[in-house]
């Protein structure tokens, strides 16, 4: 029903726009917006970013005119009308914005975490409880997302390997258990330790247990909650980037914790590094980027095809990020017919209407759409964005 309503509304808006206006750039200014986008302004060395919203996919274009300015490449989570933004490496704060009826975001609170703690992922459980992983501090802070006050913290530094923090990144809440992917990196970009998940039992005094698997390293894409998810079977999957291809011999891929188990499933490892993928240069990807689970074992994700990169890299003109459909059950990856992007965008979002990809291509910068039903992708952005869209979310 919700799906139908949404489609009807979209159709009505489309007809209205087509019949009532010849200006494609008009941004809706009334009513809550459905989509959130993070755009990055990369025209100078000092990159700044914007977090803003747009009504729906018929708007045609999006500008940052009423968006909120933030540090470069922030991490963003949504809970209800609230948007939680962490500042990547450039700040210690978690900033809360709230979506309004006027189609804008306004700041409604902020918490300052400990100095250089690098707040990463905010996971909201309820109006009164949220978790924030502190990558550098090796800590999970529990706070009240309504009052934006800290309540307690969970120290994970005892699990650190080779340095002072296990580097907690993305989190997943499943059956009163908080799963925390820890990347265990010591040089910020590679890890030589087995892939590791910390399981925090919220029902028994936040006790922490570690599970590891040496078939991969570097559990979880640090900025992608979708890299740690649970399927319809209740199995927990984590994507391991395995040092992003920098460490020879390490294999990126999916590990699984079967429902009810407390160890990695020894029978399952979807090695994406060695998979032969038809239709792309070199026939393989280095790692998946921004995976988002669509259900039934299907993930949509971007992925870095390093064979397309220049030597040395050209960060503007190398369009190495392709768009892929990943079947984690059958362990296949299929390239989608959507233009490749450079690293400034390369984001994905699964919605009930289709799959959206943030792309900076030679054809346009903005949000492209893929229809799983027809297998067709848009050739140009359905919503152009002012800046490179590195995150797309739906309220």
């Amino acid at each position, binding site marked *: 029903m919700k799906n139908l309503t949404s489609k009807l509304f979209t159709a009505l808006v489309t007809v209205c726009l087509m019949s009532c206006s010849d200006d494609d750039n008009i941004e809706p200014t009334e009513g809550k917006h459905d989509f959130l986008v993070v755009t990055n*302004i*990369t*025209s100078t060395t000092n990159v700044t970013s914007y977090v803003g919203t747009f009504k729906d996919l018929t708007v045609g274009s999006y500008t940052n005119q009423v968006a909120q300015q933030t540090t470069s490449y922030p991490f963003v989570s949504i809970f209800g009308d609230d948007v939680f933004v962490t500042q990547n490496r450039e700040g210690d704060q978690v900033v809360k914005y709230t979506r309004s009826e006027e189609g804008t975001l306004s700041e409604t609170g902020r918490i300052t975490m400990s*100095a250089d703690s690098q707040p990463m992922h905010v996971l909201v459980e309820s109006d009164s409880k949220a978790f924030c992983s502190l990558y550098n501090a090796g800590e999970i802070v529990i706070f009240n997302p309504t009052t934006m006050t800290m309540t307690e913290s969970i120290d994970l530094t005892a699990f650190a390997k080779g340095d002072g923090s296990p580097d907690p990144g993305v989190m997943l809440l499943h059956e009163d258990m908080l799963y925390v992917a820890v990347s265990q990196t010591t*040089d*910020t970009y590679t890890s030589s330790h087995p892939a590791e998940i910390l399981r925090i039992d919220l029902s028994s005094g936040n006790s922490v247990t570690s599970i590891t698997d040496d078939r991969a390293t570097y559990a979880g894409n640090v900025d992608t909650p979708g890299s740690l998810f649970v399927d319809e079977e209740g199995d927990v999957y984590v994507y391991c980037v395995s040092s992003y291809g920098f460490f020879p011999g390490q294999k990126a891929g999916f590990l699984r914790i079967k429902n009810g188990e407390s160890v990695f499933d020894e029978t399952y490892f979807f090695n994406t590094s060695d998979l032969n993928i038809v239709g792309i240069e070199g026939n393989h990807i280095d790692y998946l980027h921004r995976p988002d689970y669509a259900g039934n074992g299907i993930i949509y994700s971007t992925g870095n095809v390093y064979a397309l990169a220049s030597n*040395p890299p050209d*960060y503007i003109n190398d369009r190495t990020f392709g768009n892929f459909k990943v079947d984690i059950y059958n362990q296949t990856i299929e390239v989608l017919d959507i233009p490749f992007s450079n690293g400034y965008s390369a984001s994905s979002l699964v919605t009930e209407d289709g799959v959206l990809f943030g792309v900076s291509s*030679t054809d346009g910068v903005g949000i492209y759409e893929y229809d799983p039903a027809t297998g067709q992708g848009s050739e140009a952005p359905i919503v152009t964005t002012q800046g490179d869209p590195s995150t797309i979310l739906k309220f």
Partner: protein
Amino acid sequence: MNPNFKINYTKLLLLSVLWLIHNNSAHSQNGVLKGIIKDHSSKQPLGFAAVSIKALDKGAYTDSRGSFILENIPYGEYELIISNVGYQTKKLNTWIDQPITTLEVFLEESLKNLEEVTVFGESEEIQEAREVMQQVMPVTVLTSKDIENRASNLNELLTRQAGVQIRQSGGFGSSATISVRGLEGKRVQVYIDGNPVNTPDGSFGINDIPLQLIERVEIYKGTIPAYLGGDGLGSAVNVVTKHRDYSYIDASIARQSFNTTNLGLILKKVFPKQGIEAGVGVFDNRSDNDYVMQSPFQEDLEIKRDHDKFHNLLVGASVRFHRLWFDEVEVEFARNDAAKEFQGIQRNIQHVESTAKTTVFAGKLEKTNLLNGKLDFKVNALRVGIKSTFNDTSSYAYNWDGSKIPSLIGRGELGIGPNLSKTVQNEIRTWTNVHYRANHFLSFNLNYNFRTSHFDPEDSLGNAYAERNIYNYDGNLKSSILGFTSEVKLLEERLLISAALKHYYNLVTGYNTNLYVQGEPDRVSNKTNKIGYNIGLRYNFTHSLFLKASHEYAIRLPLPAELFGDGALITPSINLNPEEAYNYTAGLVYDRYYQPQRRVQLEANVFYMDVDHLIQLAGAGLTTGYINYAHAHISGMDVDGKIDLTNHFFLSLNATLQSVKDVNKFIPGTNHVSNPTYDKEIPNIPKFFSNWNVEYHHDDWFGGNSNTRIIYEGSYVQQYNYGFELSENDNFVIPAALSHNLIIEQSFFNQKFTITGQVQNLTNAVVINNWNQPLPGRSFRIKLRYLLLDRKAKV
């Protein structure tokens, strides 16, 4: 021999021989020089003509009857300079060998009516500065009068000039970049005596040059003379070091807030008979920089900086020979040892530090007036060795309360792991300049700079930690810049036209240390062959009022660090092209003494620059690299006024208005994908700023030959954005800053003793000119200087 000088030259010759024999006794007596200055044609006396003896820094103006008098002149031979507006300047040697010497001098009217007037009190340095300002290039000149007694540093003086901003990251010794007309950092070349300053780690910057050594600073805006043999996008700062050709002692000590001390000592001895000058200098600067800052990251956290110490010791010695075939032969040695700690802002850093030891051997040959006075040439050669270290090996990271935790990167507090690096750079530079005057109206200048440099880093610890060779890759640089300039004077010298061609050759060799490639990296190189040019004119409407206009096609060559990255997360970019700029600038200058000791200087400039292929960091993932990206149009204007309101009050005001816009219509690499920042102001560049000062000076308040100066300085920088202005909610702004300084300078006995007190940022205003980099607030300084000059013995 000029018949206008009614002096008995036979007697002078005889006296000169006697003087040479009885040199010492002659110096013990003083005489008086008096005379009358008249117009050669009308024989009428000339009022307000300036008569000066440079060697004694003495001078006087003629009264309305054309008479002047100079007293207390030690017996000896002196060069006398007589000048007046609209007349040709006369220089003549005269002997003071009796109690009263009288002269009658006739000045010939200048056909152009444009001759410079020499003004009492206007030193040779100021006259040279005025000559620099007469070039076709837009240039601001700071003279030693503006600089040497100040307790502040050079950066604080530079940032008060029209069109100039200094972007500082911290206190004394911190990194700072110069911005001229919106272009900053590597795009503005800095020179010392025409040699580009470009140490690999920035260990020696313009601010490290002791103020006592500076004769003047030339700030070129938009067009650079071809004899400055470096690259850059059309703006440059050239520091000209002082050269006194007599014996002197110059000692100073300055104490400043934040436990900052500056010591300087120069000893120079001249041996006139042998024609030799020998000098040594020692300069020691140190600071704790322990000022309190508000954390930009943590609310309500005040931090007293405790790991920001800086120390440098500069020692130099030189010997000049004047009696060889060359007019001047100089050998010079300099050594600069610097050590610096790194202050954390976001995290408490406690152990990171760097050192640099720079050794310079230099030689200079100079010969003038060859080919019947038509040809001059200079040759400079430098051998520079730099040994620098970077030490970051802490096993701990520190919180602001002083507690420590294991390092977040295994070992080290910065970057991707520990570093214990040693880098050796050896460099040879030569600079050859030939100047040929075909006749009074036409001259040519050929300038050639050659530089070869080898860069050899070593960091076994960093490599061991990374489990691969990241850092130990050497590099070479060979560059030559050839400049040819011709100048012609037309229309009875009212019009000066200058045109220059500049050829740039640059070959940089290094390794493609690309993390994405396994195995040993390839040795690669980047070569540039480019030709730049400039053309300009100066037209004098009157002696005091002139127009300048110039155009330059300028080039900034990619730096080795941009081409080869850092071996780790900044990947190489070996195909970088040079940055380019097409600059246009025009200005009106009015410069006149309207009364003795009262001068008015007004200048207004407009400028337009089309800069392209600007190099910037790119990449959104773990790694980044430099690319040619931005294309910008820079336009603006600046005005600068200085006036002696009375014999005691001096006022100055300058203001700069500039706009730097992104003009890339499309994202690079595409021809139809719109650039989201097209036609937007490029961020992090102030659009408007202004400086002003009021000076009151008075002689003899505290006895004869004392001088008092009280100076108030103010400056204002309008608020500007750190990011592009795209949203009505933009909050990344660098706030407007209004700051005030007060300086009191008191000298005694003809500047033999000078004491200067200074309060910088009187109101303790928050001044920030780099994002998230808090600067010191109010600071106090006091400086004592002893200057003993012996002008009698000159080479």
